[in-house]
């Protein structure tokens, strides 16, 4: 182990990644399995000149970080499924006002209170569609402690760059895993675009990037925010054309930049005849299973989603090689597989592999599945 390596827990890595990315405001509410993030931030924020506040619930937590973001801070909150449910209205608000915020959801077993200390990947669709109305979010999925650190930095940067909520979709196992990670490399820092001219200032007027340069409150721009449909001025309107243009822009500011946002990790995809598509902790079992299959002469490969959303069918199709069979292991009753089936239609055999007992899918289980299903 190099001298630069430090042993860190997944949740600590999220907190340290956020700090490295410039987060200086954290609001949260205790919930298993994400509480160590709040505890780390409670200790660390004062050390770096930041602010930690424990709010009365998750509704208040997300709204507090939205407020701090409007006041110019880079912000984070962390939660798990039950709290993530409460944050959904605030998530929609942040999409609408285009406030850069980062939410860490450490997935535990649901629905409802479920099993607080057991892992799942059951919040995938909630992360994408949890709040009402057409909206677009960026969802990143770490599969290690190192990646929890790196993807939290990336999440903060993407939130700032696109003025959009970014969700880091972790899980109970990664949250509590301890692994050596390298935090010695100074991160790239991205800051949000800000207006320069007060004359003619319109908070939601955009250039070709479609990302507005909204002023920070308290900087003399006399800016305005509302969750109501608004035009370039930021003020409410019920004009259907303005509404349509707004919602389209909220989509296009991300979808015009999919090369920047979307990341996969592929392994031996090119000549695979059985391809595993997975994300998060499940991808670690897949990785070992693929090695085992290769050693037994099978042509196996893996595609791991680092960016889960935006989800681009064409990019997935191109990245997937030509494997005739696609296996989708996930710790839910079949959420990612719905998207994979949409991508491939009837052109490939798409096989779900689901586990919903609160345990991980082991490499051996994947091998057994391949054998039993004659894949």
């Amino acid at each position, binding site marked *: 182990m190099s001298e630069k390596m430090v042993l860190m827990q997944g949740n600590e890595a999220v907190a340290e990644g956020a700090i490295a990315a410039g987060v200086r405001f954290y609001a949260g509410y205790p919930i298993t399995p994400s509480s160590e993030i709040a505890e780390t931030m409670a200790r660390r924020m004062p050390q770096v000149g930041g602010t930690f506040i424990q*709010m009365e619930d998750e509704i208040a937590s997300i*709204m507090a970080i939205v407020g701090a973001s*409007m006041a110019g801070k880079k912000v984070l909150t962390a939660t798990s499924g039950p709290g993530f449910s409460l944050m959904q209205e605030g998530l929609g608000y942040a999409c609408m006002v285009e406030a850069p915020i980062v939410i860490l959801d450490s997935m535990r077993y649901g629905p409802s209170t479920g099993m607080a200390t057991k892992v799942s990947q059951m919040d995938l669709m909630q992360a994408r569609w949890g709040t009402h109305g057409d909206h677009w979010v960026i969802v990143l999925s770490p599969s290690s402690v190192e990646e929890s650190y790196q993807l939290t930095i990336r999440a903060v940067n993407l939130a700032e760059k696109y003025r959009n909520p970014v969700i880091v979709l972790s899980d109970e196992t990664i949250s509590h895993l301890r692994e050596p990670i390298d935090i010695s490399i100074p991160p790239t820092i991205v800051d949000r675009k800000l207006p320069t001219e007060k004359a003619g200032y319109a908070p939601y007027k955009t250039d070709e990037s479609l990302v507005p340069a909204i002023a920070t*409150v308290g900087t003399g721009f006399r*800016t305005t925010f*509302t969750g109501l449909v608004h035009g370039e001025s930021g003020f409410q309107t019920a004009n259907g054309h303005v509404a349509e243009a707004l919602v389209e822009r909220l989509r296009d500011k991300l979808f015009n930049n999919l090369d920047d946002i979307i990341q996969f990790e592929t392994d031996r995809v090119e000549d695979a005849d059985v391809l595993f598509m997975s994300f998060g902790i499940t991808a670690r079992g897949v990785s070992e299973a693929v090695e085992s299959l290769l050693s037994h002469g099978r042509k196996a490969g893996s595609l791991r989603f680092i960016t889960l959303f935006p989800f681009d069918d064409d990019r997935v199709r191109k990245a997937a090689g030509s494997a005739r069979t696609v296996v989708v292991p996930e710790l839910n009753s079949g959420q990612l597989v719905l998207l994979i089936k949409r991508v491939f239609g009837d052109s490939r055999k798409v096989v779900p592999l689901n586990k919903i007992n609160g345990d991980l899918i082991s490499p051996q289980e994947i091998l057994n599945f391949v054998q039993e299903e004659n894949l």
Partner: protein
Amino acid sequence: MRLDFLRSERLPNIWCPGCGNGIVLHALLEAIDQLQLDPDKVVLVSGIGCSSRAPAYTAFDNVHTLHGRAIPVATGIKLANPDLTVIVVTGDGDSSAIGGNHLIHAARRDVDITVVVFNNYNYGMTGGQASPLTPDSSITTTTPNGNLDRPFDLVNLAAGAGATYVARSGIYFTKHLVDHLRKAIAHDGFSLVDAVAQCPTYFGRFNKKGSAGQMVTSQKDWMVLKSVAGKKTPDELAGKIIIGEFVNIERHAPESAAAPKEQA
């Protein structure tokens, strides 16, 4: 009042003829003017409802949030930039029902924001439903046979939760209202002003309170100044509400709940 505190291009406002919200907003802008605050450092944060449309008519930074959520957003803004004067504009339902939890916790924390409750005793925006401040027996669209619930006393609620400045006033007593708004904003710590206004369209009409003008002038009959209330008998105070300053605790005075405690 300084006209440059308003965004004239956003007027006229959406409020009904005879609504009391404009008078509360006027009083608030007057208080800000009297305090000689830097307009660039004033942020108005609101929730959802008739009252919460007020900030967007002002020329300050303004944040129209979600129903009940103005206080946590204001908390985030204030903690992120303590140099700002952060004022929450909210209604009776917005602050005491859906936002009630945020209200008591902000009071408990003594976060240095001011909450101005435009209290018209019902939900105006959605058609005159009962709020937690609707008096018992009152008629609203959701209490067609009279309100069975008892209302909160917002002053006592805020005081009990630890607010270090609490006042109540009514729009008939404009100078009284401005004075207490000014003191609330100047107060170092969590402050709340229960600003009683009228909703002639719903609450007034359903409860036969007369015209908007009659609703305003009637305030002098059913509001009693705190300074004289102590000299009145319970019978004399029946059906009346007391206006004035109820809590004013210097933040770091020994009696303040917010003062750091000596370690035993």
